[in-house]
């Protein structure tokens, strides 16, 4: 059955895998509908539907689901359990489809394929595409081949900020320091950083203060290197990336300071934050943990960043 409208909520793993999902469904002949960028109403709606003390990104995700659910035939909420052999996603991400089902009534069909490399190994993609093929009534081998083809084509979302940072960093220190005074390394989860509403437009805010925000997506060898520094490897996928990029920033002389953005009740971040501050920051580089929840205001965030940058320039001057 072609021409189905597939809804993808713009939240959580969207910011890591959306490009490949979009390509994949378009090539399958489906119409892909993506919810708009987060704004205050979406967040409010999400908070209304959420039960208990879910973290801010999960609440936002529920808001996106609320916005999409009546205008699509199927909702695509994959269950990413592990994307590598030795790590897990956060439990809230693992339970996400069930949480969505629990928080709403009158939902359209939900496609929730399981991506679990730790359990299925090489057959993970095979298992992942099975329910998708079933939901849109296409033969499984075709869906499988297509997903495999698209998986690595632009697999990570390269938001404009991300691309810019990467270019800046690869061009070396000369350009970096030519027209802006300092470089601030940003670590955090993509779904928090690149959601402009949640991160209060952090990147622009830093640019306005005449500093370069730098975000890097760590590569495999970097992760291995960083994990060797700490006594036990971090078994959360994103936590691992957070720790690794912090490690990279701390040892890079071109970076003047590091900001760790996390949502305030994030479980893994409460531990990795401690690890970063105490274990990795051996050179005592300026470091700030910025925790965000639904009560955070633009001005509050701006003030803290201003103070942080001010502090660095006083120290280095």
């Amino acid at each position, binding site marked *: 059955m072609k021409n189905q409208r597939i809804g993808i909520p713009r939240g959580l793993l969207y910011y890591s895998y959306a490009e490949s999902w979009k390509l994949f469904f378009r090539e399958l002949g489906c119409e892909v509908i993506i919810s708009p960028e987060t704004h205050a109403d979406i967040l409010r709606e999400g908070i209304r539907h*959420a*039960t*208990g*003390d*879910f973290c801010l990104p999960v609440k936002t995700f529920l808001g996106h689901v609320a916005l999409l659910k009546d205008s699509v035939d199927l909702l695509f909420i994959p*269950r990413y*359990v592990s994307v590598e052999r*030795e790590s*897990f*996603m*956060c*439990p*809230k991400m*693992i*339970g996400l*489809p*069930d*949480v969505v*089902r*629990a*928080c709403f009534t009158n939902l359209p069909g939900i496609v*929730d394929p*399981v991506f679990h490399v730790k359990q299925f190994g090489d057959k993970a993609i095979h298992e992942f595409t099975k329910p998708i093929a079933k939901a849109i009534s296409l033969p499984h081998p075709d869906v499988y081949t297509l997903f495999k083809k698209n998986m690595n084509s632009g697999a990570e979302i390269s938001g404009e900020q991300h691309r810019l940072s990467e270019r800046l960093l690869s061009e070396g220190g000369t350009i970096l320091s030519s027209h802006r005074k300092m470089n601030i390394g940003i670590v955090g989860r993509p779904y928090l950083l690149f959601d402009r509403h949640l991160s209060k437009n952090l990147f622009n805010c830093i640019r306005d203060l005449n500093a370069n925000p730098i975000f890097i997506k760590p590569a495999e060898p970097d992760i291995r290197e960083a994990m060797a520094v*700490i*006594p*036990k490897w*971090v*078994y*959360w996928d994103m936590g691992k990336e957070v720790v690794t990029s912090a490690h990279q920033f701390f040892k890079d002389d071109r970076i003047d300071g590091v900001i760790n953005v996390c949502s*305030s*009740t*994030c*479980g*893994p*971040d*409460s*531990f990795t*934050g*401690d*690890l970063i501050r*105490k*274990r990795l920051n051996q050179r005592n580089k300026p470091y700030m943990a910025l925790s965000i929840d639904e009560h955070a205001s633009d001005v509050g965030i701006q003030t803290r960043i201003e103070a942080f940058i001010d502090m660095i320039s006083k120290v280095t001057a």
Partner: protein
Amino acid sequence: MRLTVPHMGLLSVAYTRVLRQHGVDMQPPPKATVKTLNLGVKYSPEFACLPFKINLGNMMEALDNGADAILMPGGYGPCRFGYYGIIQEQILREQGYKFTMSTTDNPDRLSDMIDTIRDISQIKNKYDGYIVFFLILMRMAALDKATALYHYYKPREINRGDTDLTLKQAIEMIDLADSYTKLFRTMPQVKKMYHDIKIDKSFKPVTIGVLGEIFVVIEPFANLEIEKKLGELRVEVKRGVWLSDWLNDRFRYKPFRRNQTKYATKLARGYLNFPSGGESIETVGKTILFQKKGVDGVLHIMPFTCMPELVASAVINRISKDKEYPVLSMTFDEHVSEANIITRLEAFVDLLERRRDGSVSRH
């Protein structure tokens, strides 16, 4: 080497005496008090969960009392528990404590457990290691049995406090039973002791299933003795999470008891289709089980910011709506007050009583 292990319910009662016999210099932490909690809270990351904070407090007090080695279970879950030891060691070192810390990263594997026992004690023979380990498991099962009896007798007792005293005595008796023979002789005595309590046989108490994160459920200090409080409100507690069940799922020492996790996974299908770490699947599955079995309501308790239980709490909220079944979720952290807990429990019990008598409509 004076070894300490953080408290978790009655677990330390099960192993301390046995391991001491085999040459381990055990120094269990003092019982958790407000001071323990304050110590833990002071040095923990702000949003760490309650078990982490209590564990840390336990370790600090034990080290202050002269212990110099810590054994901490680990693991590689999606839950934060597997990473406790690393962060705790880092915090303790920063505070200037001198100690050695060993984390057993694979608490699920029998041979690893036996190796741990052989490492720390004078037992060098693998076979003897098994014998000792299974004795500890049996003692744990006996302690859980005594607690289950407590749950039955407490709401029915005529003289207030009799059952509490009996539980205390039962724990002491099981603690003294340091061989298989003694343990098998002790259990009938424990049962007889409970049997001798004067109870009101005609009284049919309201029943509440207690579920949630395992540490908060089994550690009376963490949940402000919620089971005792329920007993005093004349409620029969049906606990869904037992340490002996958790151990049995892994080590199969009670061959005829079915694997509780697998059973819960089966029951939870349709609501939670994939275990999302911790006790989430047990919570969901057993909520459905309790509903089917006619338990009057479910009390779901968890630490603040516990990730797996948050998922479970959203899901059992839906079950509660779908099946018109009363469910109360409560979060515990260092700010929880006794009065708050009692008020909410009283209101919940009141609701269940009225619901049972039919004086409250189901809608």
